[in-house]
């Protein structure tokens, strides 16, 4: 049982996301993370799903997903060489003074940007792989995380290969 990163190319039509996610929940799969948006081709969307299961379970859920008429391609890119990113926005309590300076220092180490500064809070924007965001979140907890939102992971294969071209 380990996390698998699945890329699902779908027709950009109303209800497609609920067809895909409905299938996952009905077949007993928990989605760890989900990201969806348009892609390089008009009329198509790309869903990136991270879910946990053994190889047989993942194979079954991929086959079932592929059966959906609006699904064009399903790939498990867990074993492929790939780049991955997730974006998080984090609102942290930052009283003027030393804690605010510390937070800004942490932000710069993580290459996070401060995108909003309030009288008692700052909002950080950070992109990276899941582990990096987890690490930053953990560090910021001590100052008080008031609100946090993550996009879910997105991923691309490295090099010239694409999920459409891959077998």
């Amino acid at each position: 049982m380990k996390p698998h990163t699945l890329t699902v190319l779908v027709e950009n039509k109303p209800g497609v996301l609920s067809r895909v996610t409905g299938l996952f929940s009905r077949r007993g799969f928990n989605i760890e993370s989900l990201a969806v948006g348009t892609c390089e081709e008009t009329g198509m969307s790309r869903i990136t799903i991270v879910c946990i299961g053994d190889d047989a379970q993942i194979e079954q859920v991929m086959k079932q997903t592929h059966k959906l008429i609006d699904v064009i391609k399903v790939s498990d890119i867990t074993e492929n060489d790939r780049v991955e990113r997730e974006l998080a926005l984090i609102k942290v309590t930052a009283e003027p003074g030393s804690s605010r300076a510390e937070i800004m220092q942490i932000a710069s180490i993580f290459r996070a940007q401060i995108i909003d500064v309030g009288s008692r809070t700052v909002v950080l924007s950070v992109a990276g792989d899941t582990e990096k965001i987890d690490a930053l979140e953990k560090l910021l907890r001590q100052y008080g995380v008031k609100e946090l939102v993550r996009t879910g992971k997105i991923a691309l294969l490295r090099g010239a290969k694409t999920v459409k071209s891959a077998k």
Partner: protein
Amino acid sequence: MKTGAKILIEGLQREGVETIFGYPGGVVLPIYDELYNSSLRHILVRHEQAAAHAADGFARASGRVGVCLATSGPGACNLVTGIATAYMDSVPIVALTGQVPTSLLGNDAFQESDITGITLPITKHNYLVKRTEDLGHIVREAFYISRTGRPGPVLIDLPKDVSTKEIEYEYPENEQVNLRGYQPTYRGHSRQIDKAVEMMMEAERPLFYVGGGVIASNASAELLRLAEMTGIPVTTTLMGIGAIPCDHPLNLGMLGMHGTRYANYAVTESDLLISVGVRFDDRVTGKLDTFAAQARIIHIDIDPAEIGKNKRVDVPIVGDSKTVLQEMRERIQKRKEYDRWLSLIRTWKEKYPMKYPRDGVLRPQFVIEQLSELLGGEGIIVSEVGQNQMWTAQYYCFRHPRTWITSGGLGTMGYGFPAAMGAHFARPDQVVFDIAGDGSFQMNIQELGTVSHYRIPVKVAILNNRFLGMVRQWQELFYDRRYSYTELPPVDFVKIANAYGIDGMRVEDCNDVRPALQAAIETDGPFIMDFRVEREENVFPMVPAGAAINEMIGGHTG
């Protein structure tokens, strides 16, 4: 200019539809108005569930797409059980539902229900049509998706304003449906087929295990040729009955929970299981790890998701059963003799035949056997669900595919009677019997109204034991005979039939069985037979839930 309703009806006709089963209501008024002048025949059922089952029965008997129509909200919701039944058994139907006007969608309007949401898990695909301009191609796509690949139900939800709006529309004559996300594989992988054939030559105890996929792909003749050519015996699932004539020497009958002992023993002892159009359902396999534990497994199915779903497979072949079986046959060069295997099977057949007591008591098995003899295994036999279904599967001698129609996957009580109506419209040349229990029959008994209205010549043989028999059987065997809510009070079914203007006969004695069946066959219209059978008869042999399929109880004595 054409209205959406007109485009819809024209689309149905272009798809070759002649008969639809439906029930009118508010938002489908424009469609019904169009039907009024159309050459399409519309059969008015008495409950929408029956419309879905009738479309399903039509599809199974004919191999063509069945169509049902209901209004929004309650009408659409009443189709749900019928759609789920068709989905579980991979039956091609197109369900048309009315919907509130697009301007009211999502507004909790009168008789609004989110039927595309509700049917998401029980349709192969569904559509909510938002623009009249899209309707024409959606109808074509729906039929295409429903009948191709692994067939299944498709639903089209039609808001009222989509039906009433007028647009310029010409039917696209030569346009192919092309969906990039839907490309079924029909041809099996060549090397895999070679491997399968090699295994057949290596095996000492091979066995065909065939199911509904063989019926759906019209592969029965091809299966028979291959079986006869190789001399490999065949066992069928409940859904595969009819793929091989019941009395064929290579046929072992049904396997699984209520299968024959010899079929289950053969699976257990086989060293090669050639699985065709099956899905290793729990009612077939019993305890999975002991199912065909000595066998290498070849699995042929058009749906890749079925391969390896429940059981690890040695040679997967994704493709259409008919095409793959044909290719296998073409590659077989010599005939291997499986004499020892066949003689072992013969010994089991002789030692453990299907039997029940012949003691002059009116038993349900006797009724079915009599019908089978009388019709010579011809005709179309539809069943309800429960004991009636299992006895029919065990004791009716089917000779042809698409003559046995039953709800296998979902196990829908109340399916048989309306499905039998549908089967009649598919095959008006055939006599159609619904083998029912008194419980199941009362689940869609209102359809007496429909068969009376149109004089649909469906013959209903009620095996009346005043119990919900299959549940009672489990209570007897596994719940210490505590018959919790399974006893039904007596009903005079003949009187009910008479009230609808339908003839019927009550039978209490073995000697009257044949004359009653004869009378049913000779009656032009519908006919109801109320067989007052032995109340606590059980379906045997039986594999208790969770046991290995060779650990059967009952059925070898008596």
